[in-house]
């Protein structure tokens, strides 16, 4: 009787993160796990019955027939049921225990590891091309530096740029890719039309993008939360659709090709006599340009990080964060919230413009396909997964998400397991979504959700995520 009584209060109690783990008897926990898994299996069965249980197949006489796939359906249902049981019995108590531990002070070891993490990560990133060259040789290095190094760093930079708008100022921007597109097309068109150099066009693209950031900022100043998100989303689509339709200028869907590539301060990366390789007495290799591009985007990304760190300690950065915390209080303290929001939009857009012009210079070809909504969503999910406002978190999230999708292309051994028709890249989005669900369950406010104060009087104390507002426009 006592076991039943306790069981009835145990599984139905609200599952707050800081709730202490009650020493529930093993029997009652098992019973609740069985019940949970039965419910999950029933739900899975109901959901997958039409999706997986039935299949339409066109037979040899071109007739559509309905076939059933009972074994597969039952296998999936069973997997869901046992997965849920595994979760309730092992993972859930572990998460709860961890939440309890996290409430205490972080250990000295963790604090030291945290301090060493950033310098060692930067050192690794600087040495990365050399490491890759040593490990894979010149032929394999191109892929690792270009697909992993440069690609990830572009998204790190975009994530940091959007972090200013979403993480610091708390303005939800779903159309960030528009400024990336403005930067890319600015570089492509100005370089092709006027033959201007990369280093002149890079700041120009940033200025143009921030100009568009301010233009977007004006109409959305009064909007908050969901409305702001929808209007910025629309703005992102408008830019893309203008690019698609203004064929005279942008060449529409066909895109712009033959964009001048960046030179090594005037020396082109070509096999000619006055090319980079010849001038420096090296054997020509496409790797030279790739490594050069890698260091450009690394410098740009570090610039973004540096500027953001400085801005957070300046009054404008504090005003952004204050705006995220409470806009009305900001106005009562004499802060011009209009200007503050516009500078956040302009600053975020500027870094997207830099990244865009770099992207155009690296690819040599751009088309509207590269600037679809899914890009905005990817960048935003990097910021959200990383933890809004946290630069380290955003960088880690970019490495995991972009590196993760790139590494899917490399998993050829899976073909030996699942057969030759298996293409791991097809499952990218599925795993992507799964990873997100896991992170949002385990760490609802992102990988690094705490906030570092910008200034301190006696000692620097990290601020827990529960107190920091997310901002609603």
């Amino acid at each position: 009787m006592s076991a039943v009584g306790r069981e009835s209060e145990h599984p139905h109690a609200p599952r707050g993160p800081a709730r202490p783990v009650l020493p529930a008897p093993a029997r009652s926990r098992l019973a609740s796990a069985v019940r949970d898994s039965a419910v999950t299996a029933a739900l899975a069965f109901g959901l997958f019955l039409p999706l997986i249980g039935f299949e339409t197949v066109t037979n040899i006489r071109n007739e559509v027939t309905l076939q059933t796939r009972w074994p597969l359906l039952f296998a999936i249902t069973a997997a869901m049921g046992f997965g849920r049981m595994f979760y309730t019995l092992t993972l859930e108590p572990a998460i709860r225990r961890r939440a309890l531990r996290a409430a205490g002070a972080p250990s000295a070891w963790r604090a030291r590891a945290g301090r060493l993490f950033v310098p060692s990560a930067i050192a690794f990133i600087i040495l990365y091309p050399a490491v890759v060259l040593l490990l894979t040789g010149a032929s394999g290095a191109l892929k690792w530096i270009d697909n992993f190094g440069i690609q990830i760093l572009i998204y790190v930079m975009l994530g940091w740029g959007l972090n200013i708008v979403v993480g610091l100022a708390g303005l939800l921007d779903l159309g960030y890719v528009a400024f990336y597109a403005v930067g890319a097309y600015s570089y492509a068109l100005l370089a092709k039309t006027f033959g201007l150099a990369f280093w002149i066009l890079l700041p120009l693209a940033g200025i143009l993008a921030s100009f568009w950031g301010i233009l977007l900022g004006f109409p959305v100043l009064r909007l908050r939360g969901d409305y702001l998100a929808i209007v910025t989303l629309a703005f992102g689509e408008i830019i893309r659709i203008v690019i698609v339709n203004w064929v005279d200028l942008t060449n529409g869907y066909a895109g712009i090709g033959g964009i001048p590539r960046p030179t090594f301060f005037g020396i082109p990366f070509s096999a000619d006599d006055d090319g980079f390789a010849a001038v420096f007495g090296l054997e020509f290799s496409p790797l030279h340009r790739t490594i050069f591009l890698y260091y450009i985007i690394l410098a740009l990304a570090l610039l973004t990080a540096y500027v953001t760190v400085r801005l957070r300690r300046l009054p404008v950065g504090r005003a952004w964060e204050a705006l995220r915390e409470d806009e009305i209080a900001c106005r009562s303290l004499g802060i011009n919230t209009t200007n503050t929001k516009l500078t956040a939009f302009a600053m975020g857009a500027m870094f997207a413009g830099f990244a865009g012009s770099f992207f155009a210079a690296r690819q040599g070809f751009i088309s509207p396909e590269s600037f679809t909504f899914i890009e905005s969503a990817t960048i935003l999910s990097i910021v959200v997964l990383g933890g809004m406002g946290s630069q380290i978190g955003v960088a880690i999230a970019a490495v995991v998400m972009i590196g993760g999708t790139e590494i899917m292309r490399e998993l050829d051994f899976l073909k030996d397991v699942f057969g030759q028709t298996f293409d791991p890249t097809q499952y990218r989005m599925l795993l992507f979504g799964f990873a997100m669900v896991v992170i949002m369950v385990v760490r609802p406010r992102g990988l690094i959700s705490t906030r570092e104060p910008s200034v301190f009087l006696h000692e620097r104390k990290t601020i827990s995520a529960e107190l920091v507002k997310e901002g609603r426009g």
Partner: protein
Amino acid sequence: MAVAANTLLHVEHLTMRFGGLVAVDDLSFDVNEGEITALIGPNGAGKTTVFNCITGFYHPSEGRLGLRHGDAAVWETLEALTASGARYRSQHGGTLFLLERMPDYLITHRARVARTFQNIRLFPGMTVLENLLVAQHNPLMRASGYTLLGIFGLSSYGAAERAAIEKARAWLDRVGLLDRADDPAGDLPYGAQRRLEIARAMCTDPVLLCLDEPAAGLNPRESAELNELLLSIRADLGTSVLLIEHDMSVVMEISDHVIVLDYGVKIADGPPQAVRNDAKVIAAYLGVADEEEVAEVEAEVG
């Protein structure tokens, strides 16, 4: 119509309508320089609406709100300023502001009227110190060369920031929060949050401090501390205070001048003792229709 020399804020015919509802009806009063003025009245009397009009969060439907900095002679230019359509003008060694023409942030920034809120509005995820630095946004913004110079470390921003931190430290000392400077504001107990909000408003260097129910939710000891704090602000800095309050121990003890509102209309205006014995005020607070009934109710209560 002459304005008295020691008048700081001169409110005339202030009316605020929300659709068909008249929240404040033709209200006129003066706030004197260096005094603590209390605005009291039953719930829904329109006190907070008056505050929101003074601090620019609402634009009044009608009325004029004049505020003076410096020499009192500047009041003579009130009619000329009103006719000119300008927001403010400096003349005769002073500056006159027409608050109804200014947006909220400029009222704090230029006219230097600071306010607190009925439901505390701190920045909970920022530290106590950061809260006070955000309040010094405008001078720090100028010192950082509007960000452009500060970002390269080119200006004297470092010195300005140190001065701002010193000022914040002085205020934290004054409100007894110095040892909590690096804690998030959202972690403070309620009474400390109230004090921090006042310190934050004072960091904007106001000539007029508007407090919306500063004693709400405070225990008697905390109320007494609040009284001391407000009196010391007036004594040491000469800042005028306008406060909305229900706690009569605060109102009667520290205010020099009490204005009573009921249904958006001023029903009494004078020193605390006179207002306390005013039959109309008692009637409004007891919720009875006229002054004869007051005697009856008082007799019943004993």
